[in-house]
């Protein structure tokens, strides 16, 4: 795997243009939604469609963020690691957009109705749970916060991203009518990523090797 460290992929990943490119890619869904909104492409119910699209992109980006570490280990491309935070923050950004359109446009800041939804409707409770976790993770995503919390505690806290991912998938499964398959595709990808993460984690070897047991 050492051979890849100076290959073209590694060079591209370490280029000073790589981050701006990833940033621009992260903004593409927003641009697409704005374009659809202005051209009438969001259809007859633009509010509902904006909620749907922003939620889908939050979930997609969360899954991509979760794929970074297993992908890094499997490919040996250490340079991938530096994009993880940005992708995670984009997931939070679309989740924030999702919640904002729901609260601000769909419910028009009817906080009583929103609160009732949160406590009464399990799929909204679960979705809001995911959003609260993502907010906490976004707020503690800076280098300063890593230092303040200490590496070990920061890592433990940020493991909660898996809870957010699970909650996001459950939220989607729970909200559709009838037996529809797309939410299960997202859930399967999430479970696959969790399994991959488990299999590729540094402690996986330890668990398998008896000599480390003591």
């Amino acid at each position, binding site marked *: 795997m050492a051979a890849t460290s100076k290959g073209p992929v590694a060079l591209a990943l370490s280029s000073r243009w790589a981050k701006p490119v990833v940033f621009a890619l992260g903004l593409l869904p927003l641009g697409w939604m704005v374009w659809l909104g202005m051209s009438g492409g969001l*259809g*007859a*119910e633009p*509010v*509902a469609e904006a909620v749907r699209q922003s939620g889908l992109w939050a979930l997609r980006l969360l899954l991509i963020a979760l794929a970074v570490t297993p992908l890094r280990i499997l490919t040996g491309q250490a340079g991938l690691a530096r994009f993880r935070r940005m992708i995670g923050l984009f997931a939070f950004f679309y989740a924030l957009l999702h919640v904002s359109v729901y609260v601000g*446009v*769909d*419910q*028009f800041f009817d906080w009583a*109705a929103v609160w*009732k*939804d949160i406590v*009464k*409707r*399990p*799929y909204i409770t679960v979705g809001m749970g995911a959003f609260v976790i993502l907010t906490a993770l976004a707020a503690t995503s800076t280098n300063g916060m890593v230092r303040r919390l200490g590496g070990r505690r920061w890592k433990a806290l940020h493991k909660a991203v898996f809870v957010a991912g699970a909650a996001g998938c459950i939220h989607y499964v*729970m*909200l*559709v*009518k*009838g*037996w*529809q*398959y797309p939410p299960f595709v997202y859930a399967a990808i999430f479970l696959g990523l969790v399994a991959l993460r488990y299999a590729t984690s540094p402690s996986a070897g330890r668990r398998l090797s008896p000599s480390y047991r003591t």
Partner: protein
Amino acid sequence: FQAPLTVSPKDPKMDAQTPMKSATSYNNFYEFGTDKTDPSENAGTLRTRPWEIAVDGDVGKPTTFGIEDLLSFPLEERVYRLRCVEGWSMVIPWVGFPLAELLKRVDPTGNAKYVAFQTLADRSQMPGLKYPVLQWPYVEGLRMDEAMHPLTILAVGMYGETLPNQNGAPVRLVVPWKYGFKSIKSIVRITLTQDQPPTSWNRSQPREYGFYSNVNPEVDHPRWSQATERRVGEFSRRKTLAFNGYGEEVASLYAGMDLRKNY
């Protein structure tokens, strides 16, 4: 067609007609896919001629009506509010005739207490049938008095034109005081029965969808509130009306019934 506007919304300002483009591009017709735009994109494969509705069960004269027979009923325009169980609504000018007129022709027997309806289920015409979203064919039902009510119509057109495939061509039910899914599309069979017939959404999730499914802001769907709705094309939500605003005409059908239990 003749055009006596038998029942129109009383406040045209509150109930402006939904643009035809919205009513024909934002649809739930899961036989053609579950996205709102799927029916308008996929329903071109539906063949609406020839078409027959078999009417049987507890009737004196079981009859198969061809589409031409259905179009020979005196047609009229009805401007109705449509409230979807998902929390959106439209105002649509339907073209059709009272279901009662058709039922009278088949001579219901004294045993006929309910009317069961069935949608076409043909995989070669309906790509959505590949997926087990619901148990196919789609079925719905009404109590006899609901079916005979003058507001209940079979529609063969909308906006003065032939019914588009995505809206349930060539003939569909419209029951304006119930959630939209009761207004079954592309009907191929109508059976009068003594027992309450199964209905698709009730069979799928009995806790969420009852047999009656009257529009009722007091009884929430377990997963979302039914207190408000957004009229498609409008920005803010409006309060949902009991029986979708047709209480004066239909509330008496349910006198003495607990509508929380019979949701």
